């Protein structure tokens, strides 16, 4: 009897250990478990350190990138929460661990590079826009974060000629066509169209340096639509769809689908909407586009099922939301994107 009770107790203990082990917590986080961050923070510093060492050094090899990325974001969440609670030391510890995990694969393949770049861009903005931190302190912390990223990932943050031209074009686009810009709602005015052409030529010069610059191609394609040049837009979206970043590919497919839809090529539209959904299942816009199209084609049950499938998922994050907001105004959405990508 006693042996049986002890065995049951031991079994329950090992089950609890298993669900609270570091890999299990990372897995839980990637499966939308809201308690995962709390469980991570409950682990001892030594236990976390050992686990991260094992994940990054590995025996015989480090974790796969998808798991490393998940663990990196989990520590980013812990950093975020610890900062909010004023636990500075703990926050700093988690940040270092996040950097280690995200930097574990040093070759910086395109997918990892895009993720790390966005992580490096997002965190300083979050710090800088945090109302609880004094502006001077926030700026210093943000700069430190950025510098650390540059040290750790010099390749990803080295400014190329193409990306410098892209940044300039983006700045101009936001200045004239951003929410408060003079050309925001008057795309048919001749002077606005002239400005659009000017910004388009800036993106073209970025693409002249690097003809496979996906973001420049995406933005240029969007402007081409505004100028009524659909054939040219399609060319640019095709370039964008070859990029490594799933957000850019998603938007490129979504926009191509929309062009086909508006021109009555409904089979093509359906195909591209589905391709967009495959790139970014948590994003609603492509699902709405597809659901609306299916309903219009008389496939009501399918239309409803597509929508229900989306709504049954947990959190939705759409790259369109950050695409349409100026950099610096969308840090929380960018963080949501990073989160959802490690979870989906």
């Amino acid at each position, binding site marked *: 009897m006693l042996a049986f009770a002890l065995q049951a107790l031991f079994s329950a203990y090992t089950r609890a250990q298993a669900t609270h082990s570091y890999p299990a917590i990372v897995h839980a986080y990637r499966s939308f478990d809201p308690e995962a961050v709390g469980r991570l923070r409950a682990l001892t510093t030594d236990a976390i350190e050992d686990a991260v060492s094992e994940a990054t050094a590995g025996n015989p090899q480090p974790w796969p990138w998808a798991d490393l990325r998940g663990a990196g974001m989990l520590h980013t969440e812990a950093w975020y929460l610890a900062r909010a609670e004023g636990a500075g030391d703990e926050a700093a510890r988690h940040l270092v661990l996040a950097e280690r995990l995200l930097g574990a694969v040093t070759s910086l393949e395109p997918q990892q590079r895009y993720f790390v770049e966005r992580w490096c861009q997002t965190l300083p903005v979050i710090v800088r826009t945090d109302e609880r931190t004094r502006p001077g302190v926030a700026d210093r912390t943000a700069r430190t974060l950025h510098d650390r990223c540059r040290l750790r990932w010099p390749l990803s943050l080295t400014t190329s000629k193409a990306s410098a031209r892209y940044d300039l074009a983006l700045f101009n*686009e936001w200045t004239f*066509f*951003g*929410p408060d*810009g003079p*050309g*925001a*709602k008057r*795309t048919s005015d001749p002077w606005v169209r002239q400005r659009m052409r000017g910004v388009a030529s800036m993106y073209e010069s970025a693409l002249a340096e690097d003809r496979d610059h996906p973001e420049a191609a995406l933005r240029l394609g*969007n*402007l081409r*639509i*505004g100028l009524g040049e659909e054939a040219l837009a399609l060319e640019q979206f095709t370039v964008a769809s070859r990029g490594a970043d799933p957000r850019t590919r998603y938007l490129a497919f979504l*926009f191509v689908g*929309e062009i086909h839809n*508006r021109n009555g090529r409904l089979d093509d539209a359906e195909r591209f909407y589905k391709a967009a959904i495959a790139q970014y299942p948590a994003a*609603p*816009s*492509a699902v*709405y*586009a597809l*659901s*609306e199209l299916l*309903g*219009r084609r008389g496939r*009501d049950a399918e*239309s*409803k099922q597509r*929508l*229900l499938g989306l*709504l*049954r998922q947990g*959190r*939705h994050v*759409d790259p*369109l*939301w950050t*695409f*349409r907001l100026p950099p610096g105004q969308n840090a929380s959405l960018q963080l949501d994107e990073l989160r959802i990508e490690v979870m989906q």
Partner: protein
Amino acid sequence: MTVRTLALIVSLLATAAPAHLAQQRFRTTTDGVRIDVLVTDGRRPIAGLQEKDFILLDQGVRQDIDTIAIEDIPLSMMLALDISESVEGQKLRALVDGVKAAASALGPRDRSALLTFSEEVRLRTPWSPGGSAIVKAVPGLAAGGATALVDAGFAALTLRDDLPDRRHLVILFTDGDDTSSWLSWRGLLDRAQRTDAVVYGVTQRSWQTARPRSLPLIVFASGDGEPPGDVVETLAEVSGGRVFAARDPDDLRTAFIGIVREFRSRYVLTYTPKNVEATGWHPIEVRLKDRKGTIKARRGYTR
């Protein structure tokens, strides 16, 4: 006893006795069309009308009304609530009260579902009997984010209850304009023309909540041009509903409960279209014969 005679008896019963005692069963056929009709004297619903009191034209061709019914048909109510950033605080609390009021007006055979939207549309409770599930869901709501009004309206119509022999009500609350939908207003109105759901809008707008109608950088979003008037009003108009403009948050409760009550007083006319095109857009006109009154009904339907 013919359906026509039965309908007459039911109508008489409806005027002579409490309406909930009427027991006519709502009938649909594969070819049948149901039209939800509100008849008022300008202010209050007119009760006791019979099928002979209506003239119904489909594509300009007069149709025979097979059945007429009120009140006794169970309803399926979808609440679609704007919980964007501007709804935070008193407005959200008033909204929660409004939901509870609407739920309290539901009967045991009625069903409800709750959908909320900011930039993200979420189905909080799927279809379930009565209103208890939506009442349980509302205390957990938190406001924040932008407004995907068009996407939410589309979802509310698309997720129409599948149970047969019901009338379908969508209550769409917003305090601002769309700021983040992918779908265009045309897509939303097209969907409205393909369902028999009636949309009632509840708006509580003020200068503080006025926002740009379209987002600038997505050129697609403005490709359809501006909608012909307010999206909520157009949607209500197309589906045969109405818009209640709440002056302050405290009006929301009255608006929500008033909508459910008014919806129950509507007539449901069923007819089998004859001598009209089988597919395409069917404009509908409903008039009163030899009587005065104001009619609200959908403008037509797409097959």
